[in-house]
């Protein structure tokens, strides 16, 4: 009995299929609560006015955008080392979610930037490295789409994901070196002084939980779809031969 048992596609589908609806509805419920709380029942900030409300979308999506990539990196490594198909397909399934998360973070950030910094876009390190992340996502999905053979695609995208991660970290450092920036420093730090006031923070935590849960539900569902597509492909190929 090990966790790798779930790397069997059939076992994976059998286990996750009943879970997905619960996770999905749970995620939707928590997100709704979090966003309604944030939108209707929090005060405006002294300096930022009502725009703080963007916080409840911006921060969770930005966090997820990064975390999804990390998850893809881990899944890629697992595929390369242990060659479990499910992990490769999970990485494939996660990428579009990562793209949407990145888009939300970019959009909300841009909309927030207009009143705060007087510009939609600035070449601030945080923003810039996010744009680079977006490009990595695009390249990664484009590579998946371009390769016919699924195992070849899994191998190559995994290699790309690993090399890309190294360069993403490098870019982050380079970008910091290049420009000091306007963006908020990380406020999730343990240093109490810096923390965002609790009124803003609690609904944000709920939203973060909702985003995480939503991601889990979607990844499971999409991975199952990918598995089914592979199965379909396999059956069709066998029927032809």
């Amino acid at each position: 009995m090990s966790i790798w048992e779930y790397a069997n596609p059939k076992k994976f589908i059998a286990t996750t299929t009943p879970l997905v609806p619960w996770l999905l509805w749970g995620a939707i419920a928590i997100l709704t609560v979090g966003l309604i709380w944030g939108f209707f029942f929090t005060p405006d900030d002294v300096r930022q006015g009502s725009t703080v409300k963007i916080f409840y979308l911006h921060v969770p999506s930005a966090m997820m955008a990064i975390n999804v990539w990390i998850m893809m990196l881990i899944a890629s490594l697992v595929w390369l080392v242990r060659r479990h198909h499910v992990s490769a397909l999970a990485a494939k399934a996660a990428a579009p979610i990562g793209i949407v998360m990145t888009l939300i973070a970019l959009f909300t950030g841009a909309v927030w930037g207009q009143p705060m910094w007087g510009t939609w876009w600035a070449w601030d390190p945080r923003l810039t490295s996010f744009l680079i992340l977006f490009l990595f996502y695009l390249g990664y999905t484009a590579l998946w789409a371009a390769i016919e053979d699924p195992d070849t695609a899994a191998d190559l995208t995994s290699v790309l994901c690993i090399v890309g991660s190294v360069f993403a970290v490098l870019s982050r450092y380079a970008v910091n070196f290049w420009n000091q920036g306007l963006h908020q420093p990380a406020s999730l730090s343990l240093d109490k002084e810096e923390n965002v006031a609790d009124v803003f923070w609690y609904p944000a935590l709920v939203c973060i939980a909702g985003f995480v849960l939503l991601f889990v539900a979607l990844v499971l569902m999409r991975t199952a779809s990918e598995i089914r597509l592979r199965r379909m492909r396999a059956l069709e190929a066998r029927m032809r031969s």
Partner: protein
Amino acid sequence: MIALLKRDLTLAVRAGGGFGLGLAFFLIVIVLVPFGVGPEAEVLARIAPGMLWVAALLAALLSLDRIFALDFEDGSLPLLATSPLPLEGVALMKGVAHWVTTGLPLTIAAPLLGFLLNLSPSAYLWLLGSLALGTPALSMIGTFGAAVTVGLKRGGLLMSLLVLPLYVPTLIFGSEAVRRGAGGFDATIPMLMVAGITLGCFALLPFAAAAALRVNLR
């Protein structure tokens, strides 16, 4: 001829998002410019019209070399030459297919990317207009260049070399239109020039391209 257009578009889609990629390159060039030039907003806004046009041009350029190369390698081109289609029509359709897969998505995306370079708001309409009118010329000129260099291994770079000077007038008028727009002036005259170039290209270059193809197939 419609069959050819349809096939080329199908191939573009099948080969992993032929539509998205020209676009992606455009995006990337625009993103790279600030990395090179630095993040100051005023500098970027100043060079935005020019850089947007240069990037569009490079994005169009980079996808040119395969307009005919693939058909040449797999032997389709001699077969098309002996088919009832006039080679002029083939060249025209290849140009159109290239525009649909590159110029069109590029034009649509350009205003979005204007943000990244802090393009001044008054320029967006002119940007859209000049690209919509100008990119067909880029595609057609590129088709001619591709026809001349088809069959050469590593023809890609040589083609760039041939095509880029031909791109200069379009680039000058196109970016001038956007620059005037950004400055709040009227840009009708450069715009008309761009339109004129495009019309001229479509009227004449298919014949030149077909002639080049015939020579290359010998």
